[in-house]
């Protein structure tokens, strides 16, 4: 919420430098999270990067029009998720015979996400990975994750606790 306050102050002062500083701060704080969310949906880094940057541009260039008062993070994550799903829908609706070939070409920077996931998939489910990453790495609250997934907070916190047990068990075995 700190960046929300900073952004509103910058917009009130109407100072170009302050506004740009607030934009940069927001970008640096949330670009990793948005990239992760988009990548987990579209599975291709170049596409995820484009969607993430487009989301930020949409936010910055319409800052005085859009309603983000509730939470900047909420607005950004919701928008990037919808944009990624829209991309998938559009891609599915097009008949692409060459698509399999395109997908099979390894991306220069794109192997990292799949590396992480395949490593964690050995002891966690995809949903558990997402919950742990969102909460542990990107500091999303259980409430925020629950809202996104449309389940109760208790369900998320329960899954998180079970995931932690699995993580503990996994690393204990690795270190033994």
């Amino acid at each position, binding site marked *: 919420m700190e960046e929300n306050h900073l952004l509103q102050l910058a*917009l*009130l002062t*109407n*100072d*170009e430098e302050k*506004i*740009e500083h607030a*934009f*940069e701060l927001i*970008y*640096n704080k949330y*670009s*990793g999270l948005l*990239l*992760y969310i988009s990548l987990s949906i579209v599975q291709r880094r170049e596409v995820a*990067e484009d969607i*993430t*940057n487009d989301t*930020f*541009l949409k936010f*910055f*260039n319409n*800052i*005085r029009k859009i309603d983000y008062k509730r939470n900047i993070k909420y607005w950004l994550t919701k928008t990037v998720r919808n944009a990624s799903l829209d991309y998938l829908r559009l891609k599915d609706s097009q008949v692409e015979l060459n698509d399999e070939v395109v997908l099979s070409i390894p991306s220069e*920077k794109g192997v*990292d*996400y799949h*590396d*992480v996931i395949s*490593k*964690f998939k050995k002891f966690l489910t995809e949903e558990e990975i997402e919950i*742990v*990453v969102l909460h*542990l*790495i990107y500091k999303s609250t259980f409430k925020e994750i629950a809202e996104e997934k449309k389940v109760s907070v208790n369900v998320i916190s329960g899954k998180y606790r079970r995931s*932690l047990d699995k*993580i*503990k068990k996994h*690393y*204990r075995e690795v270190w033994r």
Partner: protein
Amino acid sequence: MREYLTKFKNDFNGAFINTLNYNQIKDKVVIPVIRKNVKTFSLKYRFVSMLLFILILGGVFLMVATNRVIYRDGGEI
């Protein structure tokens, strides 16, 4: 537990690299600066009206609390 979580974090951050940078979109960002600064006046106006409202509310509260009634004919019963 903390050491396991730190290991998990390190494993994630070591593999998942965020290559995005604000400079990539900087040229496309339009900084929304309003040339005519109308907001300052409207804020002042809002502040004054809130202050007035609080004063009136305080006056009413004091009158009720002290049980004082002001009559139109100069206070004579």
